[in-house]
């Protein structure tokens, strides 16, 4: 029982410290972006840096996995507050609700169909290419 509790406590501490690290990195990257007046926002810089650190094996994936899983899993919670400010724009949404909904629905249908159609074709092409490359590599190996 106590062993289980200690394990749980340890898990929570691990999660919190990883989230803390992500926050620290976000803050540092934001400072960097502002200080050098970079056209790239801190969050995108952060993605690049962390990818680089993981790629170079300087940061093992398992030391950030827990925090990353939580942060991306609860994304909805973090943008609830801006959504609530719809109250401020109530009349705007009411006045334009029909054309706005049409825009969103037709637009989404365009993106879904267009992207799906294009990717379906490219996927078939690239799968063929991958098979060809694999068999070519095999042939070279056999020769």
């Amino acid at each position: 029982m106590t062993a289980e509790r200690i394990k749980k406590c340890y898990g929570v501490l691990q999660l919190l410290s990883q989230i803390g690290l992500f926050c620290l990195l976000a803050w540092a990257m934001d400072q960097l972006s502002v200080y050098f007046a970079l056209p790239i926002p801190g969050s995108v810089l952060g993605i690049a840096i962390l990818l680089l650190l993981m790629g170079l094996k300087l940061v093992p994936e398992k030391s950030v996995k827990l925090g990353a899983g939580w942060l991306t899993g609860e994304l909805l919670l973090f943008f609830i507050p801006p959504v609530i400010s719809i109250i401020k724009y109530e009349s705007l949404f009411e006045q334009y609700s029909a054309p706005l909904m049409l825009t969103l629905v037709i637009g989404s249908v365009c993106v879904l169909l267009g992207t799906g159609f294009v990717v379906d074709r490219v996927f078939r092409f690239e799968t063929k290419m991958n098979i060809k490359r694999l068999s070519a590599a095999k042939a070279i190996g056999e020769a």
Partner: protein
Amino acid sequence: MSQSMLAAISLVFTLSCYFLIKQLYLKKRVWWLAPILIVPVVIVLFVVSLKIPLPAYFEYTHWLVALLAPATIAFSVPIYRERKLIFSYPLTIGIGVVTGLLLGLLSSWGLTQIFSLPPELSQSTLVRSVSTPFAMEATSAFGGVPELTAMLVLLTGIIGMLVCEPLFKLAKINSPLAIGAALGAAAHGAGAAKASEFGKEEGVVASLTMIFTGIAMVLGAPFFSIFLV
């Protein structure tokens, strides 16, 4: 009641409402309990009925919004984890991202012109198909309002989730990569959640497409805005 009292109540209510509904949804699995649908409605009703002024609502809850930036950085972990898939289908994923991004931008631009929506709405609509943290970052390049953008992104996610199935059947789109890319590009996080109902690979591709379109939108926004505003 004092403002900080209302602010504390707002934060506690927002947190408990979100986690309770999420638990309930995981247990019951009925579509109308989907947190993305019901949580904003419940909280808006709560704020309106208690007449909580918006500044009081934001006083503490803005700390939640501050977690959007770290959450964006956390997207690097799924990119790293799925590097094998990315390296075996660079063309498919790349073209999916470019197609999705351009279709999202152009369809929003064209439709808002046709329906002649007022500028604050039409400019906030342009980035509607990318994930919220990226959209809120990119929207100002087009003259959009971050709060309006968050709402439009949320609606777009819900719509994509609801309309995708009959569309895929109708257009005979059935390869996992196509389903994943379409949902990730059209409906970001909500689309990725929906895609993982189709299968594991669909879900992974949707997440990757969502992340890459988001990054591309943020990086490209200053450039796209020259043509679209």
